[in-house]
């Protein structure tokens, strides 16, 4: 892979600060690139950037590269990296923070599509009916037809009821799901109003980099 010089213009500090302020990102600037996250990750061999590289890229504010990375979607959310990080960074949480941002920025892939279907099913019914999820996802993913025999096998064992599991009363769901709009806008204004202060502990890490 050809290496490119990172020029200041390609760095987005507002993006970096947004991630630092989100859960699991508080200690992000203290990362010493030890790589225990990448070594603990059961799927890092499939990622275009390991969790360790992702942390560094976020530190540098490489928004485009971070949001276009398949790492966000390969992550299985197993938290192995997170419980081992000696600096208390939660790469898993970072991936969860990045997902909705990537979707908002227009990233499209199967995972984003499935998550969207999942959230939609829960918003409407309050429960994740597996049959509804699989059939909705299959409509937009033609390759899923190969799973039909598997589906039939589950049905024959009574494991995939065709009736849709639903809450008796779904009224509260609308207000729960509209919380996302509230928090999204709050985060944005927070950053505009107050540029984040550099934390005490990051002076060490910046020194160390030099």
């Amino acid at each position, binding site marked *: 892979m050809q290496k490119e010089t990172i020029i200041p213009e390609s760095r987005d500090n507002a993006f970096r600060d947004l991630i630092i302020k*989100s*859960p699991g990102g508080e200690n992000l600037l203290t990362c010493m690139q030890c790589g225990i996250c990448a070594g603990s990750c*059961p*799927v890092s061999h*499939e990622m275009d950037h390991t969790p360790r590289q992702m942390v560094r890229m976020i530190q540098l504010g490489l928004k485009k590269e971070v949001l276009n990375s398949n790492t966000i*979607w*390969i992550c*299985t*959310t*197993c*938290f*192995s990296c*997170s*419980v081992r990080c000696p600096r208390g960074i*939660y790469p*898993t949480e970072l991936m*969860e*923070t990045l*997902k*909705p941002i990537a*979707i908002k920025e227009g990233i499209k892939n*199967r*995972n984003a599509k*499935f*998550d969207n279907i*999942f*959230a939609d099913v*829960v918003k409407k019914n*309050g*429960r*994740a*009916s*597996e*049959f509804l*999820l*699989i059939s909705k*996802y299959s409509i937009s993913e033609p390759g*899923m037809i190969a799973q039909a025999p*598997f589906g039939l*096998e*589950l049905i024959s*064992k*009574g*494991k*995939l*009821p065709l009736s849709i*599991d639903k*809450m*008796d*009363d779904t009224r*509260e*769901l609308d*207000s*729960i*799901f*509209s*919380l*996302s709009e*509230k*928090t999204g806008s709050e985060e944005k204004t927070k950053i505009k109003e107050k540029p984040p202060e550099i934390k005490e502990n990051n002076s060490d890490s910046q020194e160390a980099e030099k």
Partner: protein
Amino acid sequence: MKYSYYPGCAQHGTAIDQRISVEAVFKRLGIELEEIKNWNCCGALHVDDRTTRIALSARTLAGAKGLDIATPCNLCYSNLMRANTALEESALKTMINGALTNKYEGNTKPKHLLEVVVNDFGLGKLAEQIKKPLKIKAVPYYGCLLTRPENKFDSPENPKSLDNLIAALGADPVKYYYKTKCCGGPILLTNEDLALQLAKDLLVMAKETGADCMVVTCPMCHLQLDAKQKAVEAKFNMKIEMPIIYFTQLIGLSMGIPPKELGLDKHLVSTDKFIAKVGR
């Protein structure tokens, strides 16, 4: 003993076998599980907006009405635990309570059913209920989200509670280095190649131990290791035939409950040989 009970969506679908075994076993143990009325999905790992996901769990936690809340699912458990911690921040709690009819006060303790059995009920008391000690070798497989990112009852690196449970039932918990390695469940639909690869690693390692079965604590792990085992065999051209048993089913067998009443006929990998070896 009484708990507020949060079954989670899988119990009404692919984890029907676990549901049957939970009902059979807990009734006999005298542990009352009172299902939360009108419960909602925890959002699993697929409701991407964090605040919404916390709110979904906050509603569940509020529904427990002060009792400890028990759940059979690792995903539900981890979401409840994570939400509980996040809701210690009062600004977030106030905002989320604004969207809820029953406000959450922060006083509910989530517990996985494994914790309920091992810690609250106690293995000593459980041993009194055993009619037929299981003379088998079993792989203790915990999965990811039972012990990570947070739990209050076992180690995230080398948990022992399931090992101890298996031993208490008279069986031999084998040494298994992948006991907390990811099964690939969450990416099964969107990245099947990778998901099956992860499942294969676990199953091959389990097979190598010479165990008679693999014991799981989570519906997602069960789906991945039992229901998808044939797909793993086909993809990697190998024979595995490893029965995947819920810990509740294992308890039930040791108590002499007939296999059918534990949902053991609903697995995709045959449990016949395993049941014959257990001896009923």
